[in-house]
């Protein structure tokens, strides 16, 4: 499980609509807003990196979004898998 904190910026006039639209996205929660500057902090939860990046693209695609970038990541507990020699190396 990956959890990331994302900064989203929209025109101040759109902040309420944007908050609603963001909350409607799967795995996305709006936690803080700053109406005077149009800045919104969302937290996104996703199973995989791929889902996380796809979700970021969805945020960027919302109308009026001027910026959406990841600021904070917390990583899942996947154990390191570095012990084996990769098959492709052994075979070459």
């Amino acid at each position, binding site marked *: *499980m990956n*959890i*990331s*904190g*994302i*900064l989203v910026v929209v025109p101040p006039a759109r902040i309420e609509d944007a908050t609603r639209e963001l909350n409607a996205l799967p795995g996305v*929660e709006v*936690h*803080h807003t*700053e109406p005077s500057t149009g*800045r919104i*902090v*969302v*937290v996104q*939860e996703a199973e*995989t*990196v*791929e*889902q996380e*990046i*796809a979700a*970021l693209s969805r945020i960027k695609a919302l109308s009026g979004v*001027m*910026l959406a*970038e*990841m*600021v*904070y*990541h*917390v*990583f899942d507990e*996947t154990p*390191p*898998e*570095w*012990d084996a*020699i*990769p098959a*492709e*190396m*052994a075979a*070459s």
Partner: protein
Amino acid sequence: MELSRRNFLKSGVAAATAMAVGIPVSRIASAAAAETEQDWRWDKGVCRFCGVGCGIMIATQDGKIVATKGDPDAPVNRGLNCVKGYFNSKILYGKDRLTQPLMRMTDGRFDKQGKFTPVTWDQAFDEMAIQFKKAYEEKGPTGIGVIGSGQWLIQEGYAMTKLMKAGFRSNNIDPNARNCMASAVAAFMQVFGIDEPPGNYDDIEYTDTVVAWGANMAEAHPVLWQRVIDRRLGHSDMKIVNITTLRNMTSEGSDLEIIIKPNTDMALLNYLAREIIQRDAVNQAFVDAHCVFCAGPTDIGYGMRATDKFAFAAEKDIQAREVEVTLTRDEAIGLGLDPEQVHTIKQANAATADRHWLVGFEDFKAGVAPYTLDFVAELAKGDAEESLDAFKAKLVRLADLYADPKRKLVSFWTMGFNQHVRGTWVNEQIYSVHLLLGKIAEPGNSPFSLTGQPSACGTAREVGTFSHRLPADMVVNIAKHRDITEQTWKLPPKTLNPKVGSHITKIMRDLEDGSISWVWVQVNNPFQHVANANHWLKAARENDNFIVVSDAYPSISAKVADLILPVAMIFEKWGGYGNAERRTQLWREQVPPPGEARSDLWQILEFSKRITLAEVWKEQAIPGLKDEGFEEGKLPDVMAAAQEMGYTPQMTLYEALFETPQNKAFAWPDPVAKGHDNHTVKQLGVDWFVEKALFEEYAGFGRGHHHDLAPFDVYYQDDVRGLRWPVVDGKETPWRFNAKYDPYVKNGEIEFYGGAMKELVTGNLNGPTTEEKTKFPGKAKIFFRPYAAPVESPDGNYDLWLCTGRLLEHWHTGTMTRRVPELHRAMPSAVLDMNEKDAEERGLKRQDAVWIESRRGKIKAVIETTGRNRPPRGYSFMAFFDESVFVNKLCIDATCPISKEEDFKKTAIKIYKV
């Protein structure tokens, strides 16, 4: 993770995010953030994924990275990161991470045709030394080579440079940065006499205009691009221009998009220079006080071999252009020649391409005179579907922006200019435009060369890991520079080799023709990223040679190697990078490397223990060496002089070069570590602080010589987020050459004090007319450079342009970013972006699998006509991240003849259905 714990974690992440970007939060929220993070150890680091150099904060727990965040205190990115920043920790934990040395063996012995087999470090170094000595005894210092990187840590690049140049007496060391910004370097040296930009990223917040020249900043430098977009939000007068060969993400945020044909950037810049003169917009006082005018030869070839002995049959027609060229009509006009006549020109200055001489303003003016709006618009218009009038209006608008004396302006560029058969010229031309206007070296007015790699500046350039360089902008072929270096390194006189070594493409060519037979590759994937790869893959596998690759993952280069050495990555070691704005940033080791992986620095030092002075400091044959004070073709035996200095023949290079009394004075452990480990020191089994000692030794070269770095410990202070050199009396230098900000300016308000090439003969556009040299200290050069056509252009057979570049999700050859499997799936295989109508014309459509063929090879790919890159008719684009779609098999290995940087942007191809 149970639900309540997860919800709590999320509130903590939200609060920490808000705090990182300066949004006020409640006391309860900030307490949640603090509690989430309470068990983690935080420390500062630098993103390793591009030359922007964003600060990140890294949290570790039990020897693993558990979280990262954009560093709110980092002036570069102010808490933001782009999506690549996310991989700084992920990249350490890929499934196929290499963790032990692997050698090709059969029946327990090294065999070039054998299978990769795990070996111990001792076995690995022993074989490496046997093979080294074989090549070195037979061929001398020119028979070996090292291919390094702009991702080398400062200390790694420095140690390898010292080992190669002082130890092995070989200049055959070159970084992949050669193919990233060598053209920028050559132009900096020729124009200013010193490397790296006058300005810095803060120019963005002071400017009214940003012009991106062939730089898709929105994808390649996203955090910087964000600063550009932010500036526009807060500054109504701000204008953004994207000059490009295809529509891309950067176009989205731009006010003006100008689509041009390949290489016509040169014509466009001459049009701007001409307009500035015509409109009387030259800043005369600035030019008179601070500039001279220059020209150089135009018959300089394309950096290819002068022989077609090794060329594939299909390559020979283009190869022949290295010797003789018939000018195109546009080239003739641009040179002021009669376009109705045929001009066939021998490329007589191929080996002396960097010669140049002083000319007068009137010569310059005559040079740019042919570049009228009509001529340039017709030549440069890149989108067949745009009307000529509309295109002309855009060029006029561009000239308006540049010429407006009240408007501040930043020009940004990267690979579009640098990877160019006239890369040095086009870099020089943009300086010419800024210098004519006096828009340079002050906040908001800045010609700014961006870099792709995290330490292209800090290591490749500043340390000088190129085949011609020594630290602090010095070069091997100037006696005074060798003297200084020999004294600093405590070497006997004439240890250093005065003959410039092989650049990266030449190392590959040397492998092919057998003049090099031992190569060590570090932090780099050259068998994938050097153009015309089919030649080099074959040379590596089929010739009698030994190739060592230090890598973290099984890259293509690792796979063609004979010996693979597993490396520690970024935060598994102590190190430092320097970004594109001269900002040096250092970090601590955060987590231990996996298995037996060890730092590149440890590998360099361990290997140096296996070679003695007697083996290298004896007389050496250097074919072609001709230099004052040297016997032709020879480096002298310096062992006798060395013995007088206290060295012995049996001493190892480790003892002579690295474990010196000065270096041993830096003790480990050191309080600056604050409890962090150092596996390099531990594995060496020493009690001196290797990274600190080497940093300080290296910094000695630049202090007092325009390149001052702060003391090692200063970079580790909690309140420091990197410092922009020169750091003088504890203060960094935001803008160079300007007395207000730069303590090195001694005369007047502006002084271009760089010392290289500041004495020249005088002539006109055709050549020198005097032999007497004139000195012009403190001045910068305004070059006239004519338009030159690409070395190969589409014809009836290869009928489409191919340009290569990178995408946001992937980085360079993708050895690292591709390791994150989910990310790879997001961009499943390399696609060829092309225009829908071009596809239709060939009976193809979106998603069709096609063969792409050039004179040098063919590969399969899938075509895309609706992607985020939208090429105009006749043009196509492909990213070079994918190992399975090997685009560099197609690309030509022509280079800028001055910088030796390859042109990955212009290959003629044809495509047909699989």
